[in-house]
């Protein structure tokens, strides 16, 4: 799985951080997403998918292997 984040779409909701804290963090100033791992391990995939569908700004893109 490859994960992409669109920082210009991100509105700082932070739902991704709650769903998959190993993969997503937030810039403390503007709350914009920080991608911690672009190729998360399989055990994190379900959480990352949840983060993607929860994101209100459609800022997370997933490419499955």
């Amino acid at each position, binding site marked *: 799985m490859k994960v992409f984040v669109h920082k210009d779409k991100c509105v*700082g909701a*932070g739902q991704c951080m709650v769903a998959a804290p190993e993969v997503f963090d937030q*810039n*403390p*100033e*503007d*709350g914009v997403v920080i991608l911690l791992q672009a190729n998360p391990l399989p055990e994190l995939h379900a959480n990352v998918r949840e983060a993607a*569908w929860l994101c209100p*700004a*459609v800022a997370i893109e997933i490419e499955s292997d």
Partner: protein
Amino acid sequence: MLSQVVVVGGSAAGLSAVETLRREGYDGPIALIGDEVHLPYDRPPLSKQILKGVWESTRLALRPSSALNALEVEWLLNRRAESLDMQQRVVRLSNGCECQFDGLIIATGVTPRRLAAGHELANVHTLRSLEDAAKLREGLLNSRSVVIVGAGFLGAEVAAAAREMGRDVVLVDPLAAPMVRQLGAYVGSRFADLHREKGVSVRCGVGVQAMLGRNGTVSEVVLSDGSAVPADLVLVAIGSVPATDWLAGSGLPLTNGVDCDEFCQAAPGVVAAGDVASWLDPELGRVRVEHRMNATEQGIAAARTLLGRREPFRPVPYFWSDQFTIKLQAYGSTGADLRFHPVQVDGKNRFSGVYESSGRVVGALAWNMAKEARTLRTLVVERAPIDSVAGIHPPQVSATG
């Protein structure tokens, strides 16, 4: 066993519900009725990036078409649901077609409120759809004097966008400051300061008495204090009404949008989600919010209830607003009836705080301190006693000092 699902409403909540149905194993037919021509798109950027011309409208699509195709939904777009027959289990469309269901998801959203008169004048706008935003942008580009009626989220965001586009902007609201109803007096006074610093004429404590025109186009707004403001363009942003007219006579309870129980259910086999849907919270009573995040979360909950996976819907509401250089993030309840306690104050441009009810934290807000909002969210979830919050200031109603 669910075998024929109809979704009325083709925006964020309807999409979220459909995706949840598929994700959780429902393989049967889904017909989605939407009264717009577009596939599901995102509304928050309409008052910001779209208005300012920073984004093309194609960036609003909530999913790429490949993802929408994979959902295997019958998309009945540009069609209006006219009535619901609960006996026949049928939704009737304006074109005469009937959609049979055994599971129904109502996600028809809200429509903008209008003033009693004046909307027949050219260049008087409301904002909900992509078409509204395109017309509003065109109007703004061709106007000098802009009057925004209503200083809630939408009005304040459009005022900021119009000001950034170089227009003369007057922001009118009967309450004491912008965003007061939503965020209380302290944060409201910060918004008033912000807009004034950026050159918006903030006229609070007054309402609109009349909109006057010349040759069929708006030219002036008369305020309730008798003063007249020149207006080449007016945006009326005075709130919204849940889109439930089509449900009159259906038998569904409609005291606050579609009235749902704590599981987002309005009647057996009927659930609702998003701006249109109110639900029962054990602490707050009947709640309805018009936040983008709620559409996603409630869509998920409503779909699960329809599938028989009933869990009480107890979200922590999240919303945000971007105005000028300010990014505001908020969780929980933040209304004017609550006490606001600043927690961190870093000059004029960065602060955070919590909202208190009966000695407990029920809401949190951050102004250019987004990650701090996430931290304070935990206090909201826990309903932390206000005295336990480290570094907390006494309640404030004004930003002076």
